[in-house]
């Protein structure tokens, strides 16, 4: 619980009122509130660690049996009802709850999330079907956005995920996305594949195993680099 004695008295506010001020901000916010934003609007809170305030408030809620907690989402903080109250709260919001995403929307979104920035062509290459309609749906639900155009013939649009994407899936940041199984990991684990397809297979899929990094398939995303074994 709160104890104002173990905290220095910074900028004239007590730890206790810092807690209350922060809670008031959260209470009135309709989107995840970042620590930066909090300090920007209330400079008096500069000396306090926002994450600590979050923990203390959540502890108060827990002890008081409150049906909500502060959650970290899209690099900000927001009040959410606890899942056990969902069956009741749902009834209140039945009309405005959005439809769940379709399988094709989720697949497309997964590709954008892991490979961003991507063009429509990149996505279609992987999914093997046209994604025109799906992209429109995702754009209209603000889960992806157009981030510019690619330096390729016809200057196609490139897409990336939005903050809304993080909020929708309850992610703190893109880093929180579970690591995608890397193709080279799969192959390394599967010596059978090596036998069957020989070097040609590895050349395409995991050139670093053969010590020829420059011939990598054009994956061009950063995560990929992290897995290259040092040779």
């Amino acid at each position, binding site marked *: 619980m709160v104890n104002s004695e173990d905290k220095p008295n910074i900028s004239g506010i007590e730890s206790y009122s810092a807690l209350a001020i922060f809670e008031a901000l959260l209470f009135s916010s309709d989107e995840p509130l970042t620590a930066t934003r909090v300090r920007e609007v209330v400079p008096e809170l500069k000396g306090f660690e926002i994450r600590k305030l979050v923990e203390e408030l959540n502890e108060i809620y827990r002890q008081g049996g409150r049906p909500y907690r502060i959650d970290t989402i899209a690099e900000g903080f927001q009040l*959410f009802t606890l899942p056990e109250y969902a069956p009741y709260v749902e009834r209140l919001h039945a009309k405005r709850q959005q439809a*769940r995403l379709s*399988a094709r929307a989720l697949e497309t*979104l*997964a590709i954008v999330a892991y490979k961003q920035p991507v063009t429509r062509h990149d996505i279609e290459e992987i999914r*093997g079907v*046209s994604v025109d309609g799906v992209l429109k749906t995702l754009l209209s639900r603000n889960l992806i956005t157009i981030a510019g155009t690619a330096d390729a013939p016809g200057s196609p649009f490139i897409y990336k995920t939005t903050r809304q994407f993080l909020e*929708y899936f309850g992610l703190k940041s893109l880093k929180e996305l579970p690591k995608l*199984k890397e193709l080279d990991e799969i192959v390394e684990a599967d010596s059978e594949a090596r036998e069957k397809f020989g070097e*040609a297979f590895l050349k395409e899929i995991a050139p670093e195993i053969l010590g020829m990094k420059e011939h990598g398939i054009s994956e061009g995303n950063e995560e990929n680099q992290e897995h290259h074994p040092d040779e």
Partner: protein
Amino acid sequence: MYQIKLPVFEGPFDLLLFLIRKNEIDIYDIPIAQITREYLEYLELMQLLDLEIAGEFIEMVATLILIKTRMLLPNPPEESLEEFEDPRLKLTLQLLEYRRFKESAEHLEDLESVRRQYFPRRVNMKQVLREKFAPEEEFIIDATLFDLLTSFKRALDNMPKITMHHVHPVRVTIEEQVNFIFHHFQGKSFLFFHELIGELPEKIHLVVTFMAILDLMRLNLVSARQQEPFGEIRLVPLSELSFSHYLSLRESLEVDAAVKS
């Protein structure tokens, strides 16, 4: 009646992966003839059920047959065996790539389910603003220049499109449009922006009228208000609206400016 429950496939790769899993086929050693046969059976079934079959499904049949054809060609001589590429390689790579994104899509779906149990605190900003700032006065928000420009742009977009261009002298002045605005204000406590500009014949009139409005706002003769954010813009008189008053205000402002410089 039989009821057939057919999984919905997201594309040719999806269907192929389904067949591979169903038959416990090694993805690194796909029996092309067998898989093509089953693939075609599914397409027929889909046709029978009147499901729409995307062109990509048909394209895959061609790809499968091409792979099979290549595999039927005699193996290259011993010495160039190292260069030899399994015709199935590209397809296998695509399937592996598709599969890992399909898996991550399933993971996203789980996250979605979990997240739907959490309801954020909602704040209705429109409601808050209205109740907080306008209990008795109806028009609460001073429209910003951005709001004005947005309305202006909307008005421009609504003008009839003329593709031919005639060049002729501009016969409209700000003073004329100020009079035009004053005329419309007669007997009214406010004017809708769109009402005022709705009947203007040409783009140039719209532009000059817009400038006249800005001028009147500068002189504090009228103010632009909205009932809610992004609401309809209304012009509200703040002072006596007469042309002589307008001219004298403008003059004194010009004198001020001259004195300062």
